[in-house]
């Protein structure tokens, strides 16, 4: 039963009603993508567990990740130390839990900012087309072709290894791909008639880009975000492995593997457990994003 009041709002919908409806369609777009491919839910579930462990690290970690205990150096896994201890006698499990925080924070911040900046760049390039597009995308293509690890390496080497600088370095490497990701659907949507209709109706470029194009490309960009978050976590670990991660003694997964690698012949667990941790997180994100991408990729629609 509709009460008289809802009947009135249904007939006289306000601006906010429409905004809410539009936002809901973007959300529904992502949700439908989840439902199209069940593996995405599995990926999401694993990732949520990892994220919870990271958030709760201060509560659930059995030891302080920085506490050195010279008496318990390089111990294999045991009841007291499930994943063993490192060269300084620090508990590997606790360091992995705390390391998750670093990985996730850097990854999320870097990809979040790269997503915003890259989408803006790609949308502007695709929307205006012509020489603007040519110029922007040539620059992006060169950056894109440049090995992201090398790019990150140089930037961190220049700025010095801190969380902020790692975020900057990694987001720099992820901006070009996001500009590409955003540009392709922008172009196909720009050529749809509702954009030309918008011009005929006297809408401004800003309105057309943000009100009409952005909501349509958002699901695709968000979905790709999960795949790039996986990449960001991998790059952060790689940089730390090379020695350009957040400064020791802070626990990072890449740094732990680096230290473990030095003792690989007699204490393999030092490298093994953080390796598995990276693998699980990256795999869960790839699982999540891969299923979603198939669902939002218009080229793959059609026969199931």
């Amino acid at each position, binding site marked *: 039963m509709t009460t008289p009041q809802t009947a009135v709002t249904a007939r006289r*919908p306000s601006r906010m009603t429409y905004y809410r409806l539009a936002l809901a369609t973007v959300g529904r777009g992502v949700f439908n993508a989840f439902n199209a491919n069940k593996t995405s839910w599995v990926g999401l579930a694993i990732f949520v567990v990892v994220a919870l462990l990271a958030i709760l690290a201060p509560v659930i970690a059995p030891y302080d990740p920085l506490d050195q205990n010279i008496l318990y150096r390089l111990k294999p896994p045991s009841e007291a130390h499930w994943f063993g201890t490192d060269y300084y006698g620090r508990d590997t499990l606790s360091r992995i839990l705390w390391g998750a925080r670093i990985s996730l924070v850097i990854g999320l911040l870097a990809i979040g900012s790269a997503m915003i900046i890259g989408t803006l760049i790609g949308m502007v390039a695709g929307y205006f087309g012509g020489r603007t597009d040519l110029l922007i995308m040539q620059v992006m293509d060169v950056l894109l072709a440049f090995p992201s690890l090398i790019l990150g390496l140089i930037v961190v080497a220049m700025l010095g290894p801190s969380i902020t600088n790692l975020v900057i370095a990694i987001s720099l490497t992820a901006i070009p791909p996001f500009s590409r990701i955003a540009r392709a659907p922008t172009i196909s949507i720009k050529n*749809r*008639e509702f954009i030309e*209709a918008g011009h*005929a109706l*006297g809408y401004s470029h800003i309105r057309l880009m943000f009100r009409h194009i952005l*909501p349509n490309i958002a699901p695709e960009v968000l979905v790709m975000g999960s795949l790039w978050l996986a990449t960001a976590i991998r790059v952060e670990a790689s940089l730390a492995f090379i020695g350009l991660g957040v400064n020791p003694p802070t626990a990072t997964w890449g740094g732990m593997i680096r230290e473990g690698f030095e003792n690989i012949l007699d204490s393999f667990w030092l490298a093994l457990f953080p390796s598995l941790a990276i693998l699980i997180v990256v795999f869960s994100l790839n699982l999540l994003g891969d299923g979603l991408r198939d669902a939002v990729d218009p080229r793959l629609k059609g026969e199931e």
Partner: protein
Amino acid sequence: MTEPILTVDGLTTSFRVDKKWQPVVRDLDFTIDKGETVAIVGESGSGKSVTALSIMRLLQPGSSRIEGSVRLAGTDLLGLDEEAMRDVRGGDIGMIFQEPMTSLNPVLKIGFQIAEVLRRHRGMDAAAAEAEVLRLFDLVRIPDAKRRLGEYPHSFSGGMRQRAMISMALACQPKLLIADEPTTALDVTIQAQILELVRELQKEIGMAVMFITHDMGVVAEISDRVVVMLRGDKVEDAAVNDLFAAPRHAYTKMLLGAVPKLGGLGDTKTPRRFPKLDADGAGPEPQNEPDTRGKTLLEVRNLTTRFTIRGGLLNRPVGNVHAVEDVSLTLAAGETLALVGESGCGKSTTGRSILRLVQPAGAEILFEGKDLMAAGHAELRVARRRLQMIFQDPYGSLNPRQAVGSAIAEPIRVHRLMDDEAIPDRVSELLNLVGLEAEHALRFPHEFSGGQRQRICIARSLALEPKVIVADESVSALDASIKAQVINLMLDLQRELGLAYLFISHDIAVVERVSHRIAVMLLGEIVEIGPRDAILRNPQHPYTKKLIEAVPIPNPAEKRKRGALLTDELKSPVRALDWVRPASRMYPVGEGHLVREF
């Protein structure tokens, strides 16, 4: 009586949708005799293409199910194993598809793609196959065959690709040719050539033809017998003359009522609505609209729009597309001027240039006395309110993530035409005006049919209270019955609001129903302009004549006498940089009837 070539008996095809089997074709029976052409007619969703794919067994096996029987000269096709069925495909049955631009493989040479059939089914070696392809190209009248078979599809025009497709389908002298909307994507003069070609070849080879189309004109031109389909069911099966003379089923009646017949309005001067169409068929033919034309609103003088083609080492201009050349026209309040022509003739660019959606190279565009070309940003914004446009694609012209009410309210808000509180009422009013409900405001475009979407687009344009609407192929993508309804709406609005339309269309039969005047465009120029009845009944320019003659008439009794098989292609408006347009002027041949020198 010998057995028919094709016997379809109790054919039911279902698709798996949400884990349930959904029939798309139900219990279909029909036959095609040797040398006979049977047209399968229906609107979108009638299952006509699915029928063809079922006969060929080209549907995905997992997600589709075919029941009943399909016999080709006595062989049960549904009972064959896949290997034997492959011998039938391309061998006993040839097939041509609707989209000539995508139906050929872009990375293989055309000659190779045709030779492939010969090598597969007739066991020819490469040399023999090439010789045979040359013969086939001559058969389908592809000029310069020797050179063209070494080319890739992208250098073929749409009409030539369709010829290549036909030669491929006929390569093995099939018993049956299935043509699935083979001319729908082609221009009308090219369509006439292809129809003639199919008819000619059928006479030579003597095969049976199953011709799928939605166009009653094409049906009348080509078929011997007609099967009418509606949402998966056969509703009528009759000889073509009987069907047009005395349609039995209400749906057939409605379908025929919705199809305008070129020349049907005789020497009248004003548009005429389509008869009322409903479940019982078509109502009586209505009267012409009253003449409510007022003073001149829009005057375009010497409009020229060019696009530069760049290329070469430094991306320098290498040529120009002369999209619009020296077009002059006027439009009065309450009047409809139709711009007709084939693809690439510049009719759409003319419309867009007048709204300055593309920048003309030169023109005077006087709208309500002001020159839009000299207008600044603010003036142009105001002018755009009074000068609106509706587009072709009812699926593309609405933002899929914007509720319909919001789409209609947005222009009002952007131009600050009224207070925020007053807008919802105005939106309801506009929705009612185009025959929709106020409750529809909260729905999204995908919840509407094509015709409803076009109504929404019209409502959105009307939100700005325009005087002139440029309608660019606005009804071309719609099914015939829906097309008739939308045109009736447009005519109602013209009468009520005094709207002027610049009606851009390739469909001359529809143009006759809606227009007061017609301008015919060729290669960017207007070659003939004048009152509708003068243009259609007394065309002067050879191109206008050719265009009108190419339109298929939905009446088998008036089947056109076609001349020799033509292979003219559409000319390209791309010119070298130093091209100078030869001087030509237009001279009057009657009142308001001008023809370009030829």
